[in-house]
């Protein structure tokens, strides 16, 4: 017997559950199918557990400062078993929250593995049960698949994936992290803060404005992370630990460690969920979609990591909402131009918009300013004076083209920057409003004032005549 459904969402990760809830808000009848746990990679293995680790690490680093201020805490040590149960409790709590939202939102949730049988039919397998559904619309939100370099054997007990690295039961003595993006930096910085000797081997350059890159490298070095960029790993041997041979612009080297963490690249598995039965048009090995999530097959939509673009929950969430709205007859649009890039190291990195180089490549006549957190009163009282903010703007119009920062509160602060970029703000639009005092926000304001040399808290050798 074939049951009929209006909208079926396959996958309960951030993309899928946002799509389901938004569609339900807009009056659609929604069925969400999840074969594992609601929350997907983000809640269960990715964003949330990784941020529990980075948060734990940065709080741990603060203890010296807290004691200095007069907090008496006794001897500090790390109990990873406690961290584990804390993590599980938090994840379960968040998951229960999402499940509750789906229930109260009227979304029908089904357990099982969904598989397309044709362009309008889905089969759901749950243990020995198999049920057949005919749908009007379906959203494919099955997430991505991590790909690891084939020359590294992931089977060794000393070689871990990035997800495994988040739940280690012991602090590794000597950790080598190989990666290409923020995930690797976060793991490296966190374990360094918790006491590991860390070597970070980055595949490319750090994907940030050069001023930020410089400051990041300086701070990582200060935190005892040895960073090498533009690395190609040649071989990994495993003998009660790991020995990694690699090549970098300075030549061929070897590094030894107790563990190696390999951060994969986000790809898509188009053979699962019966996708190979559909004649879906693909791009970069992922499902090709238009600005609202439509695939080449009418009635079939795709969102999140299974579609081209960066594998980020930020993107999956937005795509989920846009597709749901389009299905409900509203117009929406995905625009990743001002997608913020975030690294939860300590202090965090947050950037949006174009780097100085990118802006110049696009033909802009560029003016930049740099502002150190050292000059911010609130950062000073917290003794979080590392880091800086860089603004990229257009000469003449003072149109803001890029905002890059590493420093306390950067992840929260960047929202103001993203909003400004979306609004096509100019410097005045940022400097006119009132900013809470004392706060890190003032650092952003002064960084913008500094475009015209007005930042009050910057000492100048010779007073520049400022207009």
């Amino acid at each position, binding site marked *: 017997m074939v049951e009929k459904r209006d909208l079926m969402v396959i996958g309960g990760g951030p993309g899928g559950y946002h799509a389901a809830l938004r569609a339900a808000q807009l009056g659609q009848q929604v069925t969400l199918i999840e074969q594992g746990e609601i929350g997907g990679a983000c809640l269960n293995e990715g964003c949330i557990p990784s941020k529990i680790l980075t948060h734990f690490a940065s709080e741990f680093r603060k203890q010296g400062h807290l004691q200095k201020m007069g907090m008496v805490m006794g001897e500090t040590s790390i109990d990873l078993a406690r961290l584990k149960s804390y993590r599980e409790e938090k994840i379960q709590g968040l998951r229960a929250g999402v499940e509750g939202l789906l229930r109260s939102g009227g979304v029908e949730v089904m357990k099982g593995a969904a598989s397309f049988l044709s362009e309008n039919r889905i089969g759901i397998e749950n243990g020995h049960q198999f049920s057949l559904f005919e749908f009007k619309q379906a959203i494919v939100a099955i997430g991505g698949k991590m790909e690891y370099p084939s020359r590294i054997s992931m089977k060794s007990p000393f070689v871990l994936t990035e997800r495994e690295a988040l739940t280690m039961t012991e602090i590794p003595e000597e950790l080598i992290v190989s990666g290409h993006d923020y995930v690797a930096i976060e793991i490296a910085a966190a374990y360094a803060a918790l006491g590991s000797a860390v070597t970070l081997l980055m595949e490319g350059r750090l994907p940030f404005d050069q001023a930020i890159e410089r400051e990041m490298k300086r701070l990582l070095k200060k935190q005892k992370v040895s960073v090498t960029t533009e690395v190609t790993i040649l071989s990994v041997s495993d003998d009660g630990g790991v020995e990694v041979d690699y090549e970098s612009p300075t030549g061929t080297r070897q590094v030894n460690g107790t563990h190696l963490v390999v951060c994969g690249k986000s790809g898509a598995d188009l053979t699962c969920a019966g996708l190979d039965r559909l004649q879906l048009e693909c791009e970069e090995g992922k499902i090709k979609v238009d600005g609202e999530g439509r695939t080449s097959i009418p009635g079939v939509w795709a969102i999140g990591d299974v579609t081209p673009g960066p594998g980020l929950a930020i993107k999956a969430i937005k795509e989920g909402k846009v597709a749901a709205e389009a299905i409900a007859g509203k117009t929406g649009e995905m625009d990743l131009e001002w997608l913020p890039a975030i690294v939860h190291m300590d202090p965090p990195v947050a950037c949006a918009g174009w780097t100085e180089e990118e802006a110049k490549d696009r033909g*802009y006549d560029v003016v930049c300013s740099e502002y150190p957190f050292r000059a911010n009163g609130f950062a000073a009282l917290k003794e979080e004076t590392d880091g800086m903010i860089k603004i990229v703007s257009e000469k003449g*119009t003072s*149109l803001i083209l890029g905002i890059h920062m590493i420093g306390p509160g950067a992840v929260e602060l960047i929202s103001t920057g993203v909003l400004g970029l979306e609004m096509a703000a100019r410097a005045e639009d940022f400097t006119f409003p009132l900013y809470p005092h004392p706060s890190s926000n003032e650092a952003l304001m002064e960084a913008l004032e500094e475009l015209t040399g007005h930042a009050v808290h910057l000492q100048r050798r010779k007073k520049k005549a400022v207009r």
Partner: protein
Amino acid sequence: MEVKLHDIGEGMTEATINAFLVGVGEQVRADQPLVEVQTDKMTAEIPAPANGIIKGFSVKEGDTIRVGETVLIMGAGKESVAPKRTSSATAQSTRILASPYTRKLARDAGIPLEKVRGSGPAGRILDEDIQSHLLVEPLPKETPERTEADSIPFRGRRKQIASKMVRSVRTIPHCTHFEEIDVTELLAWKRDVTDVSMGAFFIKALSVCLKEFPIFNGRLDEEQECVHLQHAHHIGVAVDTEEGLIVPVIRHVEEKTLKGIQKELKALTNKALDHTLTAKEATGGTFTVSNVGPLGGSIGATPIINEPEVALVSFHKTKKRPMVNEADEIVIRSIMNVSMSFDHRVADGGTAVRFTNRLRDFIEKPGILLMEMI
């Protein structure tokens, strides 16, 4: 103020947008035609409900919309198109400067932002720019995507014809009766009467036959269990146009002269071809005739009854053929086939045969028709 598609003809439910007769930003007077729409039967114009200015269209040419849907938005009274401020933007910027809200306005209105000039500071596109863009430039027409197979639209009139045909064949038990008629004498008569066409003659002849067989000018009322025999002979004439079949109606044929019918036939055919028929001219038929003879080629086909009528007659191609006359000689005559479909619930084959026999008599001996004329 929203201008909507209202019911302009008998039971119409949808219409296709043929053309906009006004542009965005144009001042219009009350009752001025704004949009030309096309139903299965006719072309009609939607007039302005009041004086005002056209703000924008909610539909595109070629769209098929239902009764009650909004066609366009009008602003009240006199409004002037906002003057364009010049932008100070440097041309090189690859960034489109507009806030997310403004971008949504454009998206909802279907305007590509690249086409809009920003009048805000540093060339930012403001909400007003979207509105004034709508005023000066009508919405872009969609260019159909080229798919692998060539496709032609199945909507508007074609779709309406299709559903009507299906409904007719599903509800009416069609029965078709064929006959051949010798038109040699009619052709000779026609040489003298140059200002009357064969078509006009057929229509008049049919009307005379309908007087004798009013059942074929009836309308079945199943609920009341009766057939209403209608006195007026409003004869629909099937006209083959590029977009398909249209049936303008010559009203009260029973009261009209051959010349009068001829004049009206010509005028209505031209209007059908130009899609300028009014609602009245394309509705209310009681019997339909289709003259496919001039197209050449058809010796017979089953006409589908123009529901809720009872019958329909088709005149096919005339062809010279050897015939055997009463003296058993082989003679060359001009022969035309006729097919008549009728509702078998209402009439039987015998009645249909008698009807076409009478019609054949008039056509074979045009003089006899004279006797029956008013």
